[in-house]
């Protein structure tokens, strides 16, 4: 039987991570993500897992990457400044194709900013924080229930595509308590990474004969192989052979983009006849839902597009919607980040893209969104 619990977003991450099979956590506590570290420290030993508080955030993600290479599902969680510190290792995990889950409970920035207040200022950092060309998967839940579900999904897609997956919450989602329906553990689809079928002697960690995602052997079971941040060939040893490097870059991109339909999550409300579509995500999307309901009562034809998969960005769906609706309104708790992606998506279409944002630590209220809708629609 399923159970219902009242829990915070951070509690939900912990609960879901354990169900998803996470058995290693390393990190450095930072507000507003600290309860994740606290919860993992409490829960992991009960299921035979390990928790380590490292010397800093870099150590945290480094240890998680190392643990993952031994075949153990691993996670780290942080916020703002800690997320900055983790960027280099996120790149390493992308290049080494190492599954890990990184949670970033967004708070006001830049720098130490406002530890106890929310923001959505890290959405572009999640996309481009680490250097070099790369693809990343990032989910941005709008409720505690969704935080629970997408933590499990984050582990699943991370394992499936041998890649880091980022879960972006914010101070509001992280700390507020809501009801969460939790099913029997067996009801959840849990995906584990593909292990090699060949013997250790013939194993290559980046063997392309398996398609876009090569099987990953766990260290410690007799498979000896090399992982590096340098560009490498199928054996994992460094190469600068331009042809091989280009193929590697292409495959790293393709394994995410060509599989996008498998993890393309979004919610739409009343977009069919909309003259204006609000694009909002995370906690702000909750305010947007109230605003569009209120606006509909005043006969303003407004809809909502809420990306849950924030990266890769769903340019295709926005483009399709732009053929129906004359206006978009991007609302986010920052000074304008995802609005740029919306503009990119509607390029060549006569659709206007408007923006409402603030970065002062206050949640954007339904009233503010409603007023902006009125202003844009001139009613």
């Amino acid at each position, binding site marked *: 039987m399923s159970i219902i619990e009242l829990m915070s977003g951070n509690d939900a991450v912990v609960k879901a991570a354990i169900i998803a099979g996470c058995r290693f956590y390393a990190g450095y506590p930072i507000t507003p993500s600290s309860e994740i570290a606290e919860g993992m420290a409490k829960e992991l030993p009960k299921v035979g897992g390990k928790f380590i508080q490292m010397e800093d955030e870099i150590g945290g993600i480094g240890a998680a990457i190392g643990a993952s290479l031994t075949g153990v599902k691993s996670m780290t969680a942080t916020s703002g400044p800690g997320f900055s510190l983790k960027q280099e290792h996120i790149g390493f995990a992308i290049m080494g194709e190492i599954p890990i889950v990184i949670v970033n409970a967004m708070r006001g920035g830049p720098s130490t900013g406002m530890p106890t207040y929310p923001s959505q200022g890290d959405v572009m950092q999640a996309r481009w924080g680490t250097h070099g060309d790369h693809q990343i998967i990032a989910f941005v839940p709008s409720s505690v229930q969704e935080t629970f579900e997408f933590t499990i999904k984050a582990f699943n897609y991370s394992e499936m595509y041998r890649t880091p997956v980022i879960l972006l919450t914010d101070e509001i989602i992280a700390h507020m308590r809501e*009801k969460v329906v939790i099913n029997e553990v067996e009801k959840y689809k849990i995906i584990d990474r593909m292990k090699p079928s060949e013997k250790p002697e013939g194993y290559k960690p980046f063997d392309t004969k398996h398609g876009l995602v090569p099987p990953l052997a766990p260290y410690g079971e007799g498979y000896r192989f090399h992982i590096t941040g340098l560009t490498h060939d199928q054996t994992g040893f460094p190469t600068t052979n331009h042809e091989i490097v280009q193929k590697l870059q292409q495959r790293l991109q393709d394994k995410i983009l060509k599989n996008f339909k498998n993890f393309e999550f979004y919610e739409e409300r009343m977009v069919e006849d909309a003259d204006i579509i609000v694009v909002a995500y995370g906690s702000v999307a909750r305010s947007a839902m109230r605003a569009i309901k209120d606006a509909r009562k005043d006969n303003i034809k407004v809809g909502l597009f809420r990306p849950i998969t924030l990266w890769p960005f769903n340019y295709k769906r926005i483009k399709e919607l732009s053929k129906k609706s004359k206006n978009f309104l991007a609302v986010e708790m920052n000074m304008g980040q995802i609005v740029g992606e919306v503009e990119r998506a509607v390029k060549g279409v006569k659709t206007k893209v408007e923006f409402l944002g603030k970065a002062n630590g206050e949640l954007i209220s339904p009233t503010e969104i409603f007023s902006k809708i009125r202003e844009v629609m001139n009613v």
Partner: protein
Amino acid sequence: MRRAEIRLAGSGGQGIILAAKVIAEAAGIFSNYNVLQSQIYGAAARGELSKADVIIDEGDIYTLEISAADILLSLSQEAYDKYSKELKEDGKMIIDSFYVKNYDQLDKRIYPFPISELSKQLANSELFSNMISVGIITQMTKYFSEESILKSVEKNVPKNFVEMNIKAVKIGFEKVAEKYPNIC
């Protein structure tokens, strides 16, 4: 029921956050409403102003914050001073008359109870002010049943203290019945 917004405020250490959690579970887990519970994080150390909010609704909750409360609990003068203006026209404010001395005597929305005194009578300590308040709120609002709140208390307080906390909640019930029989 329509959306109800409850704000509990007092000093850090008075058990405001536990009270909010008990109310939220009474409504959300033991009465099947949607609930959202949040609180101020950060500087709220022992003795400083502490606040926790509970939103209860039959439908989905989209507005995540309270702008004006239906029910406001003020366990300290500072809490009263800061939040009394954010009470709805038809809202109710419950104050601990021992700590909140300075309040608008003519405001019909204010219901004073000697909460911390009652706690001292019960256990020679103010530790149970929060649960007495929970009992008062339950009885004044009828958002959820007495049974729901008692189950929630049982679930949320340490085992050794369940009996005392339940006694405290029941004192809350009784005081409302005594003082404002027309509400019950």
